[in-house]
């Protein structure tokens, strides 16, 4: 079963904040633990070795946690050729199971899209080797950022989708809600106490207020069809004119998964690696003949939008955006995907 598939009715417990360190200690004994940590000015999701490293008072991590499952550089195999024979070494799978602790619900939900795309008929063993053995404990957002729009993308600031366990900050403790069987097993830890009616009521109120505080993104119904119709509309040029064609929006995105395969070789041996790639780069579609079917930023940016809002909804029944807002805050020219979607929904052209 893919983690985060909801096998169980929600059961919940309370984790008092002063007991969190002991819970993390026990997790660390059994698993490799990834959690939000401070690195200079930014928060990143990194492996931790002590509970004190964890920062839970944060907006969202600068980079999405996808690299834990789909690293920027992934060795696929090593090879050696000798006297016409080729030897291939595939790296061993993961030995220790892992847990990703304290990520945001949008990012947890993003994993569900990666599961769909990298799963299915041609299952990606490298991804699922990490994914299957990794528990996801996420932290609900009680104060979403102005750049967040998960609710409009089908998720929500307290959405359990993609998590095994969902924590919600009640100020002196967290309400922990089991989403999967594996999440429920975590609740057996002695750090958790029984929850009560009052905590559940407070949690409900926080959830409601959090959702109400989010500005909805105006999105046309059947946008996926509409986009096909406006594919050749001149509006794309106006929308994308300021784009610099960098990799920020795709590399930071929790759901972008495009990659390149290359060999790093010296003499007769080498390594085949998978590295991230981006549809925003000209090289992504550059053909050996010299032709580039997506010659300018316009075609490349359009691809990004079409993929997220038309192709993926059609092929995977899920939007390719979970509304984390990273591309909104980090784009150097503030090319805001919410405005793009709104403008394309507005019926100009088509």
């Amino acid at each position: 079963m893919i983690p985060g598939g909801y096998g169980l009715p929600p059961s919940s417990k309370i984790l008092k904040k002063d007991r969190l360190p002991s819970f993390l200690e026990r997790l660390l004994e059994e698993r490799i633990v990834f959690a939000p940590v401070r690195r200079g000015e930014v928060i990143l999701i990194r492996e931790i070795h002590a509970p004190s490293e964890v920062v839970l008072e944060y907006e969202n991590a600068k980079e999405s946690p996808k690299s834990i499952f789909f690293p920027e550089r992934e060795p696929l195999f090593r090879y050696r050729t000798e006297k016409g024979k080729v030897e291939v070494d595939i790296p061993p799978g993961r030995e220790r199971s892992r847990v990703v602790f304290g990520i945001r619900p949008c990012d947890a939900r993003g994993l569900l899209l990666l599961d769909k795309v990298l799963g299915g008929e041609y299952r990606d063993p490298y991804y699922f080797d990490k994914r299957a053995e990794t528990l996801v404990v996420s932290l609900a957002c009680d104060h979403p950022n102005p750049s967040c729009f998960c609710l409009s993308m089908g998720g929500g600031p307290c959405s359990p989708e993609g998590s095994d366990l969902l924590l919600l900050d009640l100020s002196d403790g967290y309400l922990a809600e089991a989403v999967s069987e594996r999440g429920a097993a975590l609740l057996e830890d002695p750090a958790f106490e029984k929850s009560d009616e009052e905590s559940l009521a407070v949690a409900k109120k926080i959830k409601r207020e959090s959702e109400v505080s989010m500005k909805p993104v105006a999105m046309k119904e059947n946008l996926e069809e509409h986009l096909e119709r406006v594919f050749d509309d001149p509006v794309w040029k106006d929308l994308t004119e300021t784009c610099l064609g960098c990799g920020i929006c795709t590399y930071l995105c929790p759901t972008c998964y495009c990659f390149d395969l290359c060999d790093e070789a010296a003499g007769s041996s080498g390594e085949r690696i998978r590295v991230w790639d981006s549809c925003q780069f000209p090289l992504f579609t550059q053909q050996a003949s010299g032709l580039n079917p997506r010659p300018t930023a316009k075609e490349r940016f359009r691809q990004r939008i079409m993929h997220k809002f038309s192709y993926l909804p059609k092929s995977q029944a899920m939007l390719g955006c979970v509304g984390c807002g990273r591309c909104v805050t980090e784009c150097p020219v503030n090319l805001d995907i919410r405005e793009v979607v709104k403008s394309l929904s507005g019926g100009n052209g088509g």
Partner: protein
Amino acid sequence: MQQLTNEIRAIARKLLREKKVEVVIGFERGSMPLRSRPCFIRKEEEVNRLFWDGFCENALAVYLPKRKERAAIVAKGCDSRAVVELIKEKQVQRDRVILIGVPCRGMVDRSRIESSAAPRRILEMREIEDTLILRGTDFEETLKRSEFLHESCKTCTHPNPVLHDVLVSEWLEEKNEDPFADIQTFDALTAEERWDYLNKEVDKCIRCYACRNACPLCYCPECFVDASLPQWIGKSIDSSDTMIFHLMRAYHLAGRCVSCGACERACPVGVDIRKLNRKLVKDVKDLFGYEAGLNLEQTSPLATFRPDDTESFIVNP
């Protein structure tokens, strides 16, 4: 700020009406507080989108090379220097660009403002002279603008446009402080310490190339990192490859970098790209007496051949 905005709009309107240019490249209000962003104005009725405040941080000259239209560009000191350099390098034709010069008081670093307000969230910002008034759901706070400038703006010695066709507002007094104090501190470290520092910075890099793409002087049709025949460097974030990317880029910009800071501002993960570029800016100034983009006359060091060059780095004397 409103006055500058009005002046820019009036100039743009006139240029478009008189068909002096086909497009005005300037700034408009962004989609969030503390953000302004580039915009392209082609119609007179759209000039009111143009806007000016302390967050107009992008280096607009990046949009000039290969542009077929006759363009006007809103230019701070650094932008004008980038245009000068681009004209010298034959990427922009002087008679096809109009510079709307704006003397610049320095651009504000939004991440510093955000961290000073954290964990409170800023929902609205107003800029009046040297103050920034921030407002959130349950707070209002006034900050001194000049205390939150970008690094590149703090050490900027040319806030006034070095080249302009129209000027907005008044000339500012130019500072005379040593702009290279940070580089002297860096120079004073041992080679090993410098190497460690650079490695630590480069390790953050995700190779999104935003630094390169935001740079007005990085306009090569094919960047060396993208070449595949031959492939000069590996594609991954292995630190040796990332380091090569940064070192080579810095060298390719030696004597050309105008210290606009666009690269480090674009970087999403805060790599200190500035150290390398500024170090080379300083070296080029010390060794060849050249500062990029100050005028159209002086020959660039890379384009200079002098038989009497001392070559003191090879032989003595």
